[in-house]
């Protein structure tokens, strides 16, 4: 078994926490796991991605081009940026909530989230798009968008382990004060997606 997940977003969105939760769940399910965060010089506002490699054998922590089974995009532009890692027929979950870049250095293209989303849909028609930031905000805080996306991944049944395992990890890892809202975000997203994917 080998399953590669890539999470892409912007500094401050909780990419690293989300990848840690997935890695712990994979371990609990009995797999080897290896993760790598790729962050630029700036910790804030910059592109952040996390590679999570799950399998029977230990591999290098970076997913090769065209091999990711699942791409969780916390933000449209970052999702598109990391698309070449996804394999043909891979699954994509995208948070449609755009985060415009901090500054616009000369030569930086306009940010057009709608165009990027339709680009994504053209290549991966069975993509899951939703405003997970809004969903999380609805149940308590926009900061839980990362956990909402994990819930969506569980609901879409695209993870290589049972969703109960992920729930257990969530309960063990998220500090008590934030647990309720994260749980709510996870559940709400899980149910929404389950509803869509089980017509």
């Amino acid at each position: 078994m080998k399953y590669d997940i890539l999470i892409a977003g912007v500094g401050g969105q909780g990419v690293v926490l989300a990848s840690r939760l997935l890695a712990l769940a994979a371990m609990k399910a009995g797999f080897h796991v290896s993760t790598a965060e790729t962050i630029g010089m700036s910790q804030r506002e910059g592109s952040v991605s996390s590679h999570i490699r799950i399998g029977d054998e230990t591999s290098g922590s970076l997913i090769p081009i065209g091999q990711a089974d699942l791409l969780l995009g916390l933000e449209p532009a970052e999702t598109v940026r990391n698309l070449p890692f996804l394999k043909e027929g891979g699954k994509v979950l995208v948070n449609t909530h755009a985060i415009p870049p901090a500054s616009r250095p000369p030569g930086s293209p306009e940010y057009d989230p709608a165009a990027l989303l339709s680009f994504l849909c053209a290549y991966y028609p069975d993509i899951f798009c939703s405003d997970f930031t809004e969903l999380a905000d609805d149940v308590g805080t926009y900061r839980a968008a990362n956990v909402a996306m994990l819930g969506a991944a569980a609901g879409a049944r695209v993870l290589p382990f049972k969703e109960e395992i992920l729930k257990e990890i969530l309960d063990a890892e998220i500090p008590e004060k934030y647990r309720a809202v994260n749980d709510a975000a996870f559940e709400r997203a899980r149910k929404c997606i389950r509803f869509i994917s089980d017509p």
Partner: protein
Amino acid sequence: MTDKKLLMGNEAIALGAIEAGVQVVTGYPGTPSTEALETIARYANRCGIYTEWSSNEKVALETAVGAAYSGAKALVTMKQVGLNVASDPLMSLSYIGVKGALVLLVADDPGPHSSQTEQDTRVFGHFANIPVLDPATPQEAYELTKLAFELSHEFETPVILRTTTRVSHSCGDVEVEAGEPAPVEAVEEGFVKDRRWTIFPKLTAERHPWLESVQEKLSEHFSELNFNSVLGSGKIGIIASGVSALYVKEAVKTVRDFEKLFTLFRVGTVYPFPEKAVLSFLKGIDQLIVVEELDPYLEEQVLQLIGKFHLPVDVYGKKNGFFPVSGEYNVDIVTDSINRALVTCGESLRLSHASPAVSREKLPPLPIRAPTLCAGCMHRTVFYAFKQAAKQLKKEAQTDTIFSGDIGCYTLGNAYPLNMVDTCLCMGAGISLAGGLSRTNPKAKHVAFIGDSTFFHSGIPAVINAVYNGANITLAVLDNRTTAMTGHQPHPGVGVNVLGNTSKAIEIADVVKSCGVESVRTINTVDPDSLESCVKAAKEAMNFNGPSVLVFKGKCVGITKPDKYYKIKPETCTGCSFCIKELGCPALNLDGDKPVIQDNCSGCGLCAQICPSEAICIGGVKL
């Protein structure tokens, strides 16, 4: 009994060191090495380990050496460029050797992701005659850390545990000893006086043969260890170390029965080269592919061996252009490079790539997210003030200004639109560089920027030099009360040690005064109207004849909670975009034709001070 934990490579090293019985741990923060010491510090009280962030790597090493001379087990952590700072004591130490044990964790950064160089510590170990272990995964990092302490103790030599970013900063499942780390045993013997600890030419001459003999013994010893392992039995050999070995494994797997075509040799103990083991691997191989990031270290070792024993083996590596000589590797690069070698070997098989549905070329244009100073960072205010001061001096007296930067967050002063860094070389170099520039450009003004932690690291001797030799420079110390870029470690100016306990805070202004700087001022950048006073102070300091120092005191927004935020009054704003174009604050963004201030504003008030229409005002108190 073992336990499985999800650990970052650096955390695995920390646990390995604690289990090996480490008693003294020193270091200087530097990505990607930092978390090793931070993890040990978390267990320091419980386990009775002395831990410190030292003022620089040389000091850290020397402190650890003192502990090791007393029979203790010591660990020093740094990144590859930090080893350069520590190299002076290190080169002598290899002759003297240690008691107890001394392990250096040195993290290399192929890529480089956050470093000034792509230097290769394996080569440094060779140069310094110090054994080097090269783990590929967090699990190996854990195990090799323990081995490093054993070797150091047994062979009385310092040992380098060399990692790369993909080992230090990757997380993996690691099998560790079960339970919480236990208290370590204290040093029994203490320092015993002996002429052996005092390096003299005579002692060096005596010790050199010993040093050489240790290398031979270690090479023999390493040949027996299973950290150097063989997989497969084909006639094409591949040799690799560190994380490259994992890339190779993944790349060759795309060929069915790869074990029949290839023999892979993974080197875990890279220096001294495990000659015997490699020799026996080379038997029966006529083509050898060498896969390694950074320097052609393994390649050179193998070529020597082939020459020494007249072996009929063709070698494909960096030296003949089959592999890239720089940058970080990955499975794709390794696949392509091995394929190039296979073509030349006359082999018809090829390793295959996965093909993405969307290649990079097909992507639509994407916005650039350039690294930038944080919203409300005090450095932006100081840089902007100097920019204004330099502009005024240019206008009034046609004087140019040259800005020398340094290593740290303030390197980001080079980013658009500030463009405030004309030079940047290594820690502490900005001050001496400005001194040098002032000799050859006497008509220009010379300003050096340095951060607080860097000032203590290696800025002080440069200040002394500027005073002693009368350099006409201005030094701006950007004191945000932390070592920000590596993750907010305390330093001697903060008054807190690594465990969070209070210690004596050293005032930078007092230090430079006692170094003989006559023009010293401390300026607070926290006031919402600090820009004007900063510009004024900058100008005065630049006009001072001789070395002048300004200490700008503020706070790092990464560790302080903002107390207010600003907003733009749309009815007053003319949409001139001056605020956006001048500052590059990530909280300011264009929304339609007028800027808006976003949530991440931390209320520095800089934009309000420059808006020509007074359209920006305090928007409220942050909760």
